[in-house]
């Protein structure tokens, strides 16, 4: 049991931090532009595919640096020549624009790279078990993912709170007009933040591709969960996104690891169930089976009881 809890804890943190890399960009973009970017996970997928292609010729490490840059530039271009024009017609148009973009990117990826799963692998120097505990390996690559994510979190925090750019970004988030009046180029800041957010999503894709698989459905699998994190953490709150990412990561991992069913809980309360009753499907429902819906359940509960999210400041 201890073995299961130990590894579930580690896996949950790895998953959570990976989700954070996606959610951080999304929540920044939202707080700045008021746009929920539906195509955010698509940039994550693009990151994985671009890095895969680069890794074929120049190796994993070049891909790790170049692919997020490519995706970031692509994101900036989308903002500059797409979103900025659509912005005139209000938020609904922007929302539909990003929604369409998500489909477009998925089709383009299938068109260029095909429908098969790509053999995108970890670099060889990271293909060893970092440590073995109770006979179970913890891959070094997972630790590498952990390090990169923590590094990104610290870097983001420092840039946003300790640097001049961060100051302007924070000002542009809350008082865009006043910031523009003071002589700052707010549209440029927007473009930069959008590009940066996409680059972060791309980086998440680069490091997740070898671990979780590089295939056309990878964006869809992760897309909705990122929205849950942003809402649960509080729209626009970086710290909230961090806590919510870890929460969701751990929630999903432990829900799969722990085999409890409804009837186990009832037994604990001394309630016996009839194996032949019409509700027997409900009694036998186990935690791993409902694991995929737990984050959404949390989303609904948060929206009911704390609409601003865990750390959100404003209602949107």
């Amino acid at each position, binding site marked *: *049991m201890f*073995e*299961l809890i130990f*590894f*579930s804890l580690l*896996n949950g943190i*790895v*998953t959570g931090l990976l989700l954070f890399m996606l959610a951080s960009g999304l929540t920044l973009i939202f707080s700045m532009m008021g746009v929920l970017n539906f195509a955010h996970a698509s940039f994550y997928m693009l990151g994985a595919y671009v890095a895969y292609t680069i890794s074929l010729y120049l190796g994993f490490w070049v891909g790790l640096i170049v692919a997020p840059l490519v995706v970031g530039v692509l994101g900036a271009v989308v903002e500059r020549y797409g979103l900025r024009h659509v912005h005139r017609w209000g938020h609904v148009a922007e929302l539909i624009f990003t929604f369409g973009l998500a489909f477009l990117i998925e089709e383009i990826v299938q068109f260029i790279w*095909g*429908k*098969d*799963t*790509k*053999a995108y*692998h970890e670099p060889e120097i990271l293909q060893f*078990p970092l440590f*073995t505990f109770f*006979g*179970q*390996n913890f*891959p070094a690559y*997972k630790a590498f993912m952990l390090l990169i994510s923590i590094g990104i979190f610290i870097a983001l925090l420092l840039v946003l709170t300790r640097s001049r750019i961060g100051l302007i970004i924070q000002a542009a988030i809350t008082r865009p007009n006043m910031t523009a009046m003071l002589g700052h180029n707010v549209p440029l800041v927007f473009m930069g933040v959008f590009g940066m957010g996409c680059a972060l999503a791309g980086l998440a894709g680069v490091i997740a591709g070898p*671990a*979780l*698989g590089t*295939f*056309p*459905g*990878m964006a869809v*699998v*992760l897309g909705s*969960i990122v929205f849950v994190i942003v809402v649960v953490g509080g729209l626009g709150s970086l710290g909230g996104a961090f806590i919510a990412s870890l929460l969701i990561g751990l929630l*999903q*991992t432990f829900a*799969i*690891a722990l085999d409890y069913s409804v009837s186990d809980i009832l037994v604990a309360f001394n309630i016996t169930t009839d194996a032949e009753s019409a509700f027997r499907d409900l009694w036998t429902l186990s935690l*791993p*089976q409902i694991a*995929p819906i737990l984050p959404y359940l949390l989303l609904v509960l948060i929206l009911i009881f704390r609409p601003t999210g865990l750390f959100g400041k404003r209602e949107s």
Partner: protein
Amino acid sequence: MKIKSTIIAGAALATLSAFAAQAADTIKIGFIDPLSGPFAATGTNGLAQFRYAVDELVNKKGGVLGGTEFEIVAYDNKISPKESLIQLKRAIGEGVRYIAQGNSSGVANALTDAIKKHNKRNPDNRVLFLNYSAVDPALTNAKCNFWHFRFDANADIKMNALTDVIKVKKDIKKIYLIGQDYSFGKSVAAAAVRFLKEKRPDVVIVGNELHPIGKVKDFTPYATKIRASGADAVITGNWGADMIGLGKAIGETGLDVPIYTYYAANDGITKTIGASGKNKIRLVHEGPLNPPSSAAYEAYHKGFKAKNPEKDISQFRIANTVQMLAAAIEKAGNAQPINVAKALEGMEFTSLHGETLTMRAEDHQMIQPIHISVHTDEGITFDSDNSGYGLSTETTVAAADTALPTTCKMKRPM
């Protein structure tokens, strides 16, 4: 024009059947499978194998009935049963009398019903259903019908063969079952539980898990759980991205136990699993690949790779389907589906691999040797996904030992 000639041919068939078959220019096989959408890779791969089999095994050898060639006509069903029925109507309208389909038992169930109905209503232009891959046991049991022939081993037969192997492996004491949460995943798990109880009552099933299909982003938590359960073997019916994720995650935990699968090869899976699944992943399948079985198969395989360097012979049963259809037409002396069906019933056939296959008459289920192969890069002549890795046969279960009784009560047309 085509409809007209079909009507003429149909009228002629009623009186001069043998002559009419001679007069038709080609014998058309309608291939109804996904050629677009998420499962397009599997569908187009199957189509390439059908085209090659027809050219190589029938047309280049002078066709059937003294010169009539086979022709594959492709219809895209987007893996939807509804779309398949529309395509079936279209195919029948275009003069197709042989329908080949394999991907998804849901589609196969819809097609077998529709064809049964069609043949009842149109005794003059009946259609034969050649099912080359859909493995739902019901198709040759409760739902069996005279016009349906299955060339793949059904899910129960595969599990029967697999548990025969487990029966003699006394070091396997704990087994973990994991599968996708839908009809096929559940039937694999149910069959595993049933056969294991029968053959190895001492084996403990330490986990019987279903996960959402196509929605799991990381299989590591499942792998951790399998590892913690102390399982000596894993059985899964997973396919596609779900198979890759599971295979990789189990490999990474360092768990060194056999993983018995139905579909962990080809279409990018072999390449992606690569070294992490070496000597762990095993496949239950028909048609042995390594070591090469016969010179005839070797030539066939090399010819296919020369034409389709990016594709693999992932479904060898397609060659059997084409060859047996040709043999049945020759035996019947004409291409009338009812006569061909009668010729196919109980037919014994020697495949390119040199194996003897029987189309069991009572339920139209092919009875064939089943192989358990391991994913490795040693001693591989024919690899998959051009990856250097491929399937090397470890155990072969003889055809007679795989046969399971059927509940089919076949109603034969007069």
